[in-house]
């Protein structure tokens, strides 16, 4: 018993203090991994904020975007043109989703829309692989998967560029949301559908824009994840990994997605490296969920979520 307590409460911290360089490496690895989760979580938040739809298909959209991009590049399309084409495909997809799935289901309960997006997940997975093939593809975007050393700490170049990309993306999104006309309309819709409609904001157009933006975020996430682990079916599963990020940060907050991602990423890496061996390892699968669950007991709306006020 004392041994277990020692293993939980003392030994990990001794290890951390013992080799600060290694600790910093774990920390940075966690931060990078967390930013990658944030990229996926961002797509969720955007759609949830604007339409109240919990879009389970975000992971499938990431897979679909990556598959399309790689498929185009493999067929000899230049990278820049392929990017433009993929963006066009994702916008078209957003249009189709709005037309075929969302519009007939407007005003239905949330759970029905949620199930529809799961149906969409199946459809996109089947469709993407049918068109572009199911084998694992390599996505080469010209950033080598090499590491360099700064002050005795290894830093992976690919992960660093992913981190920078997500930071830039978040900044752009923040400006888009706060400073542009469309952004203001988006926030109005997120606040109150009916009020937004009554002052003349076209709800359907707004939803299409939101799904397009989520599609573009999916492209970025697809590129980053694809470059890291190859474009394959498992990409659609990263959606599951970004869910605890969401509950931690709150479903309606863009900064929450980022901070939540960082906490989950760092917590997961720390847990795996320092506490994982105690229980036989491979705790990554559920650690984030339990962390988020414990957190929810104290703050049900997440870190930055809107406070839930209930009236009869």
């Amino acid at each position: 018993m004392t041994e277990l307590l020692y293993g939980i409460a003392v030994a990990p911290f001794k290890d951390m203090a013992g080799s600060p360089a290694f600790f910093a490496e774990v920390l940075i690895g966690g931060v990078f991994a967390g930013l990658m989760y944030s990229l996926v979580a961002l797509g969720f938040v955007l759609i949830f904020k604007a339409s109240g739809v919990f879009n389970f298909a975000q992971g499938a959209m990431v897979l679909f975007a990556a598959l399309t991009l790689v498929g185009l590049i493999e067929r000899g399309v230049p990278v820049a043109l392929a990017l433009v084409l993929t963006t066009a495909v994702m916008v078209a997809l957003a249009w189709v989703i709005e037309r075929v799935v969302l519009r007939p289901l407007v005003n239905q309960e949330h759970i029905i829309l949620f199930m529809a997006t799961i149906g969409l997940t199946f459809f996109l997975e089947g469709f993407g692989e049918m068109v572009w093939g199911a084998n694992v593809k390599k996505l080469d975007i010209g950033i080598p998967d090499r590491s360099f050393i700064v002050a005795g700490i290894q830093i992976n170049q690919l992960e660093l560029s992913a981190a920078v990309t997500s930071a830039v993306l978040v900044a752009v999104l923040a400006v888009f949301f706060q400073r542009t006309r469309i952004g203001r309309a988006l926030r109005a819709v997120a606040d109150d559908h009916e009020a937004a409609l009554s002052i003349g904001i076209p709800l359907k157009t707004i939803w299409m824009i939101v799904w397009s933006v989520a599609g573009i975020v999916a492209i970025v996430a697809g590129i980053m994840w694809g470059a890291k682990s190859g474009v394959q079916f498992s990409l659609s599963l990263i959606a599951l990994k970004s869910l605890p990020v969401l509950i931690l940060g709150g479903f309606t907050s863009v900064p929450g997605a980022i901070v939540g991602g960082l906490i989950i990423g760092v917590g997961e890496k720390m847990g795996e490296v320092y506490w994982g061996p105690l229980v036989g390892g491979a705790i990554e699968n559920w650690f984030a969920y339990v962390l988020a669950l414990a957190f929810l007991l104290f703050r049900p709306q997440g870190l930055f979520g809107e406070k839930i006020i209930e009236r009869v």
Partner: protein
Amino acid sequence: MIYREAGQFRTTYASDQAIFPIPQDRWFVVFAAVAAFVIPPLAANEYWLQAVLIPFLIYSLAAIGLNLLTGYAGQLSLGTGGFMAVGAYAAFKLTTALPQLNIVVVFLLSGLIAAGVGLVFGIPSLRIKGFYLAVATLAAQFFLLWLFNKVPWFVNYASSGTITAPNRSVLGVIVTGPNATASVRYVTALALVVVGALVAKNLVRGRVGRSWMAIRDRDIAAEIIGVRPLRTKLLAFGISSFYCGVAGAELVFLYFGSAETLAFDITLSFLVLFMVIIGGLGSILGSFLGAAFIVLVPIFLTNAPQAMGLSLPVALQKQFELMVFGGLIIFFLIVEPHGLARLWQITKEKLRLWPFPH
């Protein structure tokens, strides 16, 4: 309908509140249940029993369980697969530790163990709801499967990491294990489903079911009129997990024969949720219809291209199936968001007036 309720006057409260107030309905259900016990074991072949009817019954039971929680009590759960795994592993541990114990008792006990686990993971539902809760139940799903994978005690230190159904008999007939015939397994699953559905139907008609629906429709208002949220929500989690646990034990013992944790992964949770939603939230009949739909559609999709004389490559076939399955789900949600049970209700209403629509 060929019969109408016109002229059937009920003179006592008991007959008015009966589970099937119309005698024709009652006789139809009794007749259908008897027919289900007698006809398939005599008439159906091995393939139909093994590939269609047995999974249909087991999934129906799981769907009833989830429907109690999600449809009646309004608590969205994505941890069904995890709770079913608890039932399966508990049944395996119980029957290997106590081989003389009747296997039906083992199923019920493992259901109870699953109910206990369900209670623990139901605790967050007191503070969070909706999608936050759904994501929180995913913690149960991943944690439980990880636990069964990591701790060799659960599989009796088998190096393969799988649990296998041993031969067990009830009243001298082998029910589970490699020597059990499909008909016997079918009848066992059917008996459990019939009892389970009857109990569930009565639960939701009574005090418990009403308090669940009150919590689902407006939890604060329910609290004000005296429904205790803590007890009600936890009860829903417990009873739902009991059904899922029994279904999970059946899945291994009556259907697969042997399984590892992979059989209970997140896909299973979604599958059962689909059954509940496509069948109809808050309907016991819907659970059966949804299970039938989800079991039959993949079989149909696999056989349809061959029947039409097309032969697709295996990989393409699989992707095509996935696509059509997803498409069908969206289609059904758009056509009737309240599920097949609602469609059946509408059909009944229409038939009642037929052939004079006004």
